[in-house]
């Protein structure tokens, strides 16, 4: 039963892999159950993304990369600043290769370590929350990821503790075919505050690669969490990403998402607003070039009374990029007094690209407020003329306009070097 289809099409037993992990029973049980779901579930289906045309077998059960490779360093360079003192964990091809600045967290009782380490050292905390926000049987690829997850981070902020600087995860995939399965678990206890930033990068030469990423967040009563997440995998990658938070009473969850890769991406991020008076925002930048496919959903589910959400997205598409941006605001029965707002603006730089903004409001309660604004357009001709009329070349003028378009969201990314890295991506794509 515990078998999984590999890239070769052969059927393999995952037990030998599990045996290498030396994890406690609950963690192995979690993997085995997920693997069973994977065997039963049909390939994950998405309305606007047909994964049957992608190589969803571009992974191996056993990670194949050798542990001595230092190939990750040159790729990671532009995303990490060793001068920075903030806590940083770097994972390359699923293994932790760099840890810095985490000791300073200990006096406050904050835990920031790899998730693999946490399942042993902080078993009860992990066991309590793992899989509670993103169920393993949500779809076949989430099931696969839940079974084979390589590593990721665990962040725990105790009650009423405020993190003064962001903590960062940088995940580097150096070569394709092994599968990038990074899983994060973040628990912000009642009244705490913190910010986390994760980036997923790979070289442009990356071969076929399946990336399935899961981030689960629990924001306790009155806690406040900010997460900036950046994904930049190249064109041969197939990326399925779920970033989801449970937001409890009077808690706040703020997402900043940068989808800047040229691969085939289906990503969902957002919050389950379970608590009364809970709040969540999400701000997205999508930069698509080449043949990038971006199927992005910002999902806010209002469950608690007087819960509020605000999502905004700015997308810039060029080349033959194809973007679907869905703002999904669900207000469940009982969430009276809820307020969900969304806006989507997509900019298309040339005729070859395609962009759809789909605002969706699913409302099952009377006493609510909801609003949306969506626009898809090209660069404003008058703006371009205005800038050029002062002597600025067409290319520079376009760059200025695009820059101005995404800058308000870019400015929200919590770590300078990552913001800089996204700016570099934008510069590169506009060149």
């Amino acid at each position, binding site marked *: 039963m515990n078998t999984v289809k590999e890239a070769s099409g052969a059927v393999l037993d995952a037990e030998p892999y599990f045996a290498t992990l030396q994890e406690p029973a609950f963690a192995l049980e979690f993997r085995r159950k997920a693997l069973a779901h994977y065997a039963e579930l049909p390939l994950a289906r998405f309305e606007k993304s047909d994964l049957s045309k992608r190589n969803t077998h571009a992974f191996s059960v056993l990670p194949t990369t050798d542990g001595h490779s230092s190939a990750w360093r040159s790729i990671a360079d532009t995303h990490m600043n060793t001068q920075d003192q903030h806590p940083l964990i770097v994972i390359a091809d699923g293994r932790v290769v760099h840890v810095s600045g985490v000791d300073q967290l200990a006096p406050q009782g904050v835990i920031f370590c790899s998730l693999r380490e946490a399942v042993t050292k902080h078993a009860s905390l992990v066991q309590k929350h793992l899989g509670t926000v993103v169920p393993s049987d949500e779809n076949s690829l989430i099931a696969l990821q839940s079974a084979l997850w390589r590593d990721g981070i665990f962040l725990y902020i105790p009650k009423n503790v405020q993190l003064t600087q962001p903590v960062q995860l940088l995940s580097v995939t150096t070569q394709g075919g092994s599968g990038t399965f990074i899983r994060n678990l973040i628990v912000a206890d009642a009244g705490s505050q913190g910010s986390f930033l994760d980036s997923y990068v790979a070289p442009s030469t990356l071969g076929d690669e399946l990336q399935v990423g899961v981030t689960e967040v629990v924001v306790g009563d009155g806690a406040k969490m900010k997460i900036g997440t950046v994904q930049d995998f190249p064109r041969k990658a197939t990326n399925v990403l779920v970033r989801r938070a449970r937001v409890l009473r009077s808690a706040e969850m703020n997402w900043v998402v940068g989808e800047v890769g040229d691969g085939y991406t289906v990503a969902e991020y957002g919050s389950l607003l379970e608590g009364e008076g809970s709040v969540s925002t999400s701000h997205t930048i999508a930069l698509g070039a080449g043949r990038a496919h971006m199927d992005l959903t910002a999902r806010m589910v209002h469950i608690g009374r007087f819960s509020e959400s605000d999502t905004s997205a700015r997308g810039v598409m060029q080349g033959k990029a194809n973007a679907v941006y869905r703002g999904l605001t669900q207000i469940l029965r009982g969430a009276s007094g809820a307020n969900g707002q969304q806006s989507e603006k997509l900019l298309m730089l040339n005729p070859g690209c395609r962009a759809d903004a789909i605002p969706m409001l699913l409302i099952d309660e009377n006493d609510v407020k909801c609003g949306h604004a969506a626009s898809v357009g090209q660069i*404003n*001709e*008058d*703006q371009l*003329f*205005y*800038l*050029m*009329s*002062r*002597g*600025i*070349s*067409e290319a*520079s*003028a376009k760059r*200025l*306009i695009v*820059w*101005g*378009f*995404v*800058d*308000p969201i870019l400015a929200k990314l919590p770590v300078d070097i990552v913001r800089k890295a996204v700016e570099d991506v934008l510069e590169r794509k506009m060149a």
Partner: protein
Amino acid sequence: MANIPELKISGLHAEVAGKEILRGVDLTVRGGEVHAIMGPNGTGKSTLASSLMGHPKYTVTAGKATIDGEDLLAMSVDERARMGLFLAMQYPSEVSGVSNANFMRMALNSKLGVGHEVPVLKFHRELQGKMKSLSIDTSFAERYLNEGFSGGEKKRNEILQMAVLKPRMAILDEIDSGLDIDALRIVADGVNSLRGPEFGLLIITHYQRLLQYIIPDRVHVMMQGRIVRSGGRELALELEARGYDWLKDELGIVDETVSANA
């Protein structure tokens, strides 16, 4: 090449969305001269300004326009600007996320060329001085380009850009609309400070009021997409006193707008 700029327009025809607006404009403006184009609404004045600058909505269908003997119409919009042409617009665009100061520095550097960029500190010092002389709050330097500016602030910002870029040939398209008398005087002072043999100016306006502050050498009246009467400053005064009807009667024009005879 002489340092005296020359903008020469001959037999210019232009259309927008398939409709002919300009029907043979002839005009020459040289450095040191101030020309004013007056005329009622809808006679093609702004179309002339936008066509000369190269707005993509306007298509020149016949005629010529040169700056310093070079074919203006063959140039892209930014090339025209770098040749020294400047258009202070009636409705300047707002560009979010782009600071006013950075925009102007970029524009100035585009003009100066690679290797000749203005040092950042020097630029900001000069910019602050120019903002003060135009009574623009220096906080406007860091605000997004024209975003949330009032009508009058936008107009002053246009003149600020002109003062920074020091064009050889400037067109002011209804720069006076929406300005109160104090702002009008400040804008006029700013424009007058640029006057000199290496600066030619074409002012488009409805009203004679602006011309009390910026004294024109030549005044032209536009109707039905062409210049129908030219004269000295006294023509503006006469139009102010008598309106346009006497001129229409004299010329046998019933409808002065370009919709006539379309």
